[in-house]
């Protein structure tokens, strides 16, 4: 009988085996249960990704047990000496492994037959076939295959069922455990069961996240194969122990070769992982944080070095190739050598790019990339000779890499449906000062269907040819710009004395309309402008929708951005009083994020050790006041004041608050962690109540908001301390004590 026929027979046997049928049935049933009852920040997460991830963790256990049962059956029945006298034991184990892998594929197919129509029904237009495919055939299916390979490998290595089970169980537990350990910043490649896939967008391509899943599968597959091949090396033969069997098995050259190849391939897959760079951990010294996740680099901690060059003019031509997912560009710089001596000239460029050629005044010169990568940038340096005026021409290009220093999240990148480049990912940034007459301009090309947004300027369309549109841009007063591009739709309206351009993903149009997002934004911007003062944007404001993977928002230039969940009428997370409004969805979250424009971005409330003052409290208060006007006092009381009161009771009754002497018994680090945990509750709820008390002490809402408005106008783009706030409202800290 041929090997192929024997393999088919083994597969047929497995399909008829009752344990296999029970395992498949349980895996399918539980997976479908997860399809019906899962949650997430977006619909894609809730109905596709999270079910696949949860199902993967459960079915991996099922297939681990099934693999152990199947591999142990010959030895359990003491029939191995008979069986292996007429079949090659190595081939037998290989057939068994392939057969079990086939079962995992079959299980996946059974699930997909039901899960796909269910997902199509629930997601509607938001369903993207690539997301569904990666969920079940990229996350769920491979997890089971890895479970089979690892279990088989460990079993063949140790020949003990319980030892093999414990090893694999430990790997499952480790993958689960690492998920919550943000401080360790574990590589996404370690999550072999469920992957780190999360925050899939409903409205834009998830290519960046899908890239990580496939690379994870490549690495984990190589490691699982390595373990399995080590097991194949260890298949016991001729009554030998481990060493004797190893000596016999490695005579088949393909086995040790396979071990070597998979070990090397796994090593290279890990070391040369293409999506994240090796940026140094971020220095948070010059960053001011509101204590709530909004962090702004407000001032540098050290004095900047004396400038050696002045940038007079920069012209850049960038080609953004969404098919090959690359950037190619030419940048020409006219600089003045301020020191008049030969000295190095440096450029910051996104990691992942390279400068292919550098010319100074028409002469090709060497340019070298430094070893240090920081915040997703690398520094390229060339030596410039003694000339007053120099013209530098750089040809650069490459694929985007993201900052690997913090919670590996693929923020930047190029895909067919979405482009986002940082300033250093758009063009090299010369390390030179800007003069008053400095002019930075250029052009870039994008596929016709993508609409670009630049951080500090509005691009102008030049021409469209062969499906590619060329755009021009010009910067005044800023040295660089990032670019984002997608199938955007925009709605223009006037609010707060500004021309507001609300740019959102076209696919989100219906949702935006149904929740009357534009009306809410207009009403809230008008309300907060009347209450506190105008936002510090020159004449227009761009409100930009980001993909869900961004998980938050930012403000830069005249752009204020929030992720798509702020514009979703329905959230897919379990709702509760404890939900952080920054992490939720719906109108309340949208208004909360808009209020952060005043308190958190335009001004920077700075937390301190002795009070609960942060951007969150005053933002929650502002949101409440708007909601009271928009929906009425009864709604606002139920949704805000009652919730705050309950939170306050929990906080004041907390053990460490009632017994602060016990904090002194802890180490300073532990005490700080404990207080931090309590603060994160108090800054939303207790601080909001304190502000209500301040409002009453100031003589009511109008008087209080006038004082807050004066404070806001006097502290635009500056930090606002608690002392500033108390001075502005004319109160002392004791006046806000809720116990009095």
């Amino acid at each position, binding site marked *: 009988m041929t090997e192929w026929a024997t393999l088919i027979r083994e597969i047929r046997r497995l399909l008829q085996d009752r344990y296999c049928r029970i395992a498949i049935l349980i895996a399918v049933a539980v997976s479908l249960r997860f399809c019906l009852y899962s949650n997430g920040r977006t619909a894609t997460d809730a109905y596709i990704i999270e079910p696949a991830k*949860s199902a993967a*963790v*459960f079915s991996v*256990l*099922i297939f*681990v*047990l099934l693999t*152990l*049962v199947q591999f142990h059956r010959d030895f*359990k029945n003491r029939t191995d000496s008979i069986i292996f006298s007429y079949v090659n034991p190595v081939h037998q184990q290989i057939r068994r492994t392939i057969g079990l892998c086939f079962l995992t594929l079959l299980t996946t197919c059974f699930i997909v037959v039901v899960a796909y129509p269910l997902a199509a029904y629930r997601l509607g237009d938001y369903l993207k076939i690539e997301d569904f495919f990666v969920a079940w055939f990229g996350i769920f299916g491979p997890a089971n295959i890895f479970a089979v390979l690892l279990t088989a490998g460990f079993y063949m290595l140790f020949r003990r*069922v*319980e*030892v093999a*089970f*414990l090893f694999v*169980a*430990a790997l*499952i*537990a480790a993958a*689960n455990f690492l998920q919550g350990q943000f401080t360790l910043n574990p590589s996404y490649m370690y999550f072999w069961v469920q992957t780190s896939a999360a925050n899939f967008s409903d409205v834009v391509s998830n290519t960046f996240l899908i890239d990580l899943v496939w690379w994870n599968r490549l690495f984990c597959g190589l490691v699982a194969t390595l373990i399995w091949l080590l097991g194949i090396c260890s298949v016991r033969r001729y009554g030998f122990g481990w060493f004797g069997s190893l000596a016999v098995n490695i005579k088949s050259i393909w086995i040790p070769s396979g071990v070597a190849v998979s070990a090397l391939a796994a090593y290279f897959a890990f070391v040369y992982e293409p999506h994240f760079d090796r940026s140094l951990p971020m220095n948070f010294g010059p960053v001011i944080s509101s204590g709530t996740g909004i962090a702004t680099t407000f001032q540098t901690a050290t004095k900047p070095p004396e400038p050696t060059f002045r940038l007079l003019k920069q012209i850049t031509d960038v080609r953004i190739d969404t098919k090959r997912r690359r950037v190619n560009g030419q940048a020409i710089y006219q600089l003045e050598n301020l020191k008049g001596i030969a000295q190095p000239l440096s450029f910051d460029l996104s990691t992942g790019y390279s400068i292919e050629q550098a010319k100074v005044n028409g002469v090709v010169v060497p340019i070298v990339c430094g070893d240090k990568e920081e915040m997703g940038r690398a520094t390229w340096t060339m030596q410039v000779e003694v000339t007053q005026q120099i013209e530098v021409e750089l040809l650069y290009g490459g694929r985007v890499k993201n900052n690997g220093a913090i919670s590996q999240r693929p923020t930047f990148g190029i895909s067919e449906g979405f482009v986002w480049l940082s300033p250093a990912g758009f063009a090299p940034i010369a390390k030179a000062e800007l003069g008053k007459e400095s002019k930075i301009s250029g052009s870039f090309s994008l596929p016709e269907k993508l609409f670009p947004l630049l951080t500090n300027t509005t691009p102008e369309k030049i021409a469209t040819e062969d499906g590619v549109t060329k755009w021009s841009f010009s910067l005044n007063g800023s040295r660089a710009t990032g670019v984002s591009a997608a199938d955007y739709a925009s709605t223009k309206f006037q609010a707060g004395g500004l021309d507001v351009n609300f740019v959102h993903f076209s696919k989100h149009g219906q949702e935006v309309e149904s929740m009357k997002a534009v009306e809410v934004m207009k009403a809230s911007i008008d309300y907060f402008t009347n209450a506190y003062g105008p936002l510090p944007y020159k004449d227009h404001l761009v409100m930009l929708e980001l993909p869900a993977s961004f998980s938050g928002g930012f403000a830069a230039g005249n752009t204020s951005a929030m992720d798509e969940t702020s514009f979703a009428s329905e959230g897919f997370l379990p709702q509760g009083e404890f939900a952080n409004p920054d992490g939720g969805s719906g109108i309340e979250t949208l208004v909360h994020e808009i209020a952060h424009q005043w308190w958190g971005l335009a001004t920077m409330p700075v937390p301190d050790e002795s009070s609960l003052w942060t951007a969150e409290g005053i933002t929650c208060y502002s949101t409440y006041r708007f909601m009271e006007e928009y929906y009425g006092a009864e709604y606002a009381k139920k949704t805000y004041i009652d919730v705050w009161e309950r939170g306050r*009771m*929990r*906080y004041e*009754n*907390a*053990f*460490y608050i*009632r*017994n602060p002497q*016990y904090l002194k*018994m*802890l180490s300073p680090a*532990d005490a700080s*962690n*404990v207080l931090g*945990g*309590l603060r994160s509750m108090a800054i939303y709820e207790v601080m909001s109540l304190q502000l209500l008390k301040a409002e009453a002490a100031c003589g009511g809402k109008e008087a209080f908001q006038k004082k807050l408005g004066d404070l806001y106008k006097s502290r635009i783009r500056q930090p606002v301390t608690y002392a500033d706030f108390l001075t502005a409202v004319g109160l002392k800290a004791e006046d806000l004590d809720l116990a009095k």
Partner: protein
Amino acid sequence: MQSNKIFMYEIRRMLFSREYLLLTLALLAYSLFLIRSRVLFGTGYTAPFSLWTFADYVSSTMVLALILLVAMCSKLFTETEMQASSILRSTPTSYGVYRSLRLASITLLYMVSVGLSAGACYVYYVSVFGETSWLPLARVWGLLVVPSSVFVLGITLIAGTYSWGWIQLVLAGLLSLEIFRIPLPEIFDIRGASLLSALQSSDQPFAMTASFVLGRCLISGVGVALVVLSFRRTMGQAVE
């Protein structure tokens, strides 16, 4: 005398086995992690040394401890053990006595492991907060650990008399319970986590609901019955 020798031998055999050492180490490591990440903050904003926090700590380590118990018990039903039983039954020592001695050794070492885990928390209370009263902690520990352990012991022993594969299913079930945080009804809660559902405010005195205590008694009774049944089956299999 003979029994003492057998008992000590079984203790040594189990104590230096891979499964026992690795799982005890894992249990202690997890206990230390919980002390630093959960006990420190206090459960439900109660004191870190409150009985609520200690109960939460013990219930969090419960599943891993039960996995240790099942792994230890599974060694009673390996092929080698089943094959050796026919030889053991022909020795002067009664097979029932021998099984009891093995079970006693497993029980003792298991209690040492979970005792070490609880002890780690007590040492933390004493060294950081100066809280030395151990009796209330021991009562809570006993009420949480003993019934669950007896119940799972009974399930494992009865499963083992049918097939060694059933024990692996028990293991997988426990693992699923932990990974998926599957909530169990109060009357059947082997983790003991449902005790904390009674906690409403941080100054609430520690108390167990009647249904929780009833559940403890019930699973203890079921566990004991299953242990006895497993013994009868084992002895019955000897007769066959």
